[in-house]
């Protein structure tokens, strides 16, 4: 049998394969260049970029929990300008498509960010971070109110012809309603999920383990939540979906594809094993070969549900 076809279309976004790295888990990409993964990825989503550099939150910023971790980085980043000038050229040599994760504290800031990215050919798409749980202003206030989200997405849509991704929060009752708002605003793709708000306490010291008390939970612990939201959003909203949440094996990826995701982002698993994407891609190829599936896209949404659901 010929090699299975891993090339992937997520709406207007074309990728060499369906495996991307999630924002905030891959630095700006170059941190991984000597570990080999970079050459094999379908895409990279950058750390959230703002107009000006951001300092981030004081430590402790991370703590480990069973099957995952909490983080409260506070969107420390070098700013979009430094990224485009200092980092992006170094990523040019790799086939991975570069998606800019954008973060603003006002609709106007998001617009300016999108406008800055628009003329850059190496930018394959933009992902709006409207669901970061770890900053005082911005982000989440746009991601929890359908009306504001629709307005924000519509404003950014005017600035960009690039594939426009909106990253949804799991910390709302009905994430698909936010997905519908993003669609109305003109989003091309939805990515879900961002981290789940959580907390950890040290019983010995009686203190929270994070400086900011609350943080975002990621890792295998959140996979079932992510899978459910991907399934709901893909069925109810009608936009292509990128699945994120606790993915660390080829089997995890297949589950997300079956639930309705067209591609996936790998996050926390990279911290444990920077070679996770390669391992997943090898596993995915073997699975497709052994199952006689020619194109990975055949799996998208192919979950077989009981007839009475």
């Amino acid at each position, binding site marked *: 049998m010929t090699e299975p076809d891993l090339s992937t279309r997520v709406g207007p976004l074309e990728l060499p394969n369906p495996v991307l790295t999630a924002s905030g888990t891959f630095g700006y990409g170059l941190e991984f260049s000597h570990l080999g993964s970079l050459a094999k990825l379908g895409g990279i989503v950058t750390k959230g970029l703002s107009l000006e550099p951001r300092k981030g939150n004081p430590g402790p910023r991370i703590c480990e929990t069973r099957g995952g971790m909490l983080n409260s980085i506070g969107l420390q980043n070098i700013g979009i300008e430094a990224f485009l000038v200092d980092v992006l050229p170094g990523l040019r040599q790799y086939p991975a498509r570069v998606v800019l994760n954008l973060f603003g504290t006002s609709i106007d800031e998001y617009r300016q960010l999108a406008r800055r990215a628009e003329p850059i050919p190496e930018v394959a798409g933009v992902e709006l971070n409207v669901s970061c749980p770890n900053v005082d202003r911005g982000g989440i206030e746009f991601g929890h109110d359908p009306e504001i989200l629709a307005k924000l997405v519509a404003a950014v849509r005017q600035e960009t012809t690039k594939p426009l991704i909106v990253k949804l929060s799991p910390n709302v009752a009905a994430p698909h309603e936010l997905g519908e708002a993003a669609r109305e605003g003109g989003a091309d793709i939805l990515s879900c999920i961002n981290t789940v708000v959580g907390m950890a306490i040290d019983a010995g010291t009686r203190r929270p383990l994070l400086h900011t008390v609350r943080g975002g939970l990621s890792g295998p612990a959140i996979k079932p939540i992510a899978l459910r939201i991907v399934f709901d959003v893909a069925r109810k909203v009608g936009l292509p979906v990128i699945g994120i949440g606790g993915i660390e094996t080829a089997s995890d990826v297949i589950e997300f594809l079956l639930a309705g995701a067209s591609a996936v982002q790998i996050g926390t698993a990279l*911290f444990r094993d920077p070679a996770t994407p390669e391992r997943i891609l090898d596993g995915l190829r073997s699975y497709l070969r052994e199952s006689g599936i020619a194109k990975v896209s055949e799996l998208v949404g192919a979950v077989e549900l009981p007839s009475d659901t």
Partner: protein
Amino acid sequence: MRDLRATVSSVEPHPLPYFTLHLEIAEDFLPVVPGQFVMVEVGERLEPYLRRPFSVHDLRVAGSRVEIDLLGKVIGRGTHLLSTASPGSILRVLGPLGRGFEVQPHDRVALVAGGVGSAALLLLGRQLADRRIPFDFYYGGRSSIDLPCRSDFEEAATASGGSCIVTTEDGSEGREGLVTGPLGEALEQGAYGFLYACGPMGLLAALAGLARDHGVAGEAALETPMGCGYGACLGCAVPHVDGRFALCCKDGPVFRFDEVRW
């Protein structure tokens, strides 16, 4: 930096809760700079999920055979699993990581360790001895058990032409009190041209203050919680004097005293 499969040669027990993990690792691991660290994958998949950072405590190279030692303290499940690892088991080791100590020529220097922070200083001591730079090793612990591998430090210090000064908070070994006591007296005499340190943040902050007061420069290896160890997760923030947060794993773990906002 490489992600290598290392084989556990043995686990050397010290008075609880300390242990030394002896690992055989591929030659590709070299070179390593004193103060650099590794991220070690710990046995099971979900708990602990993340790797654990360890200083490269010691190193033996015989031909293509490389053995590294990691000095640890059992704190949680991860370190417990490592302290009970069976000889022959395989652990993945990412490293060497970060910025290490910079060895500069001085007439005499001081190495200062608080407890298991000593793990970052043995390789440095050996290198100083090789370069004929005499050093005194100040080893502080809560009590006599909190001075793991003390004899190794004594030997290295003696080999360099220096000595080992021990303090314990409970007075069970050496002089009672903190290392800053005898170190402060020696600095008063102008004994050292440079300080190297590793230990809890409180101790390092005190040392940085002491060094500044005596006009002596120094470097410290910092310990913070770490997610990845190579600059991707931004979890290990260290307040830098320039106002930003530096990353312990990438900008450090070794910082000059005057780089950190203590």
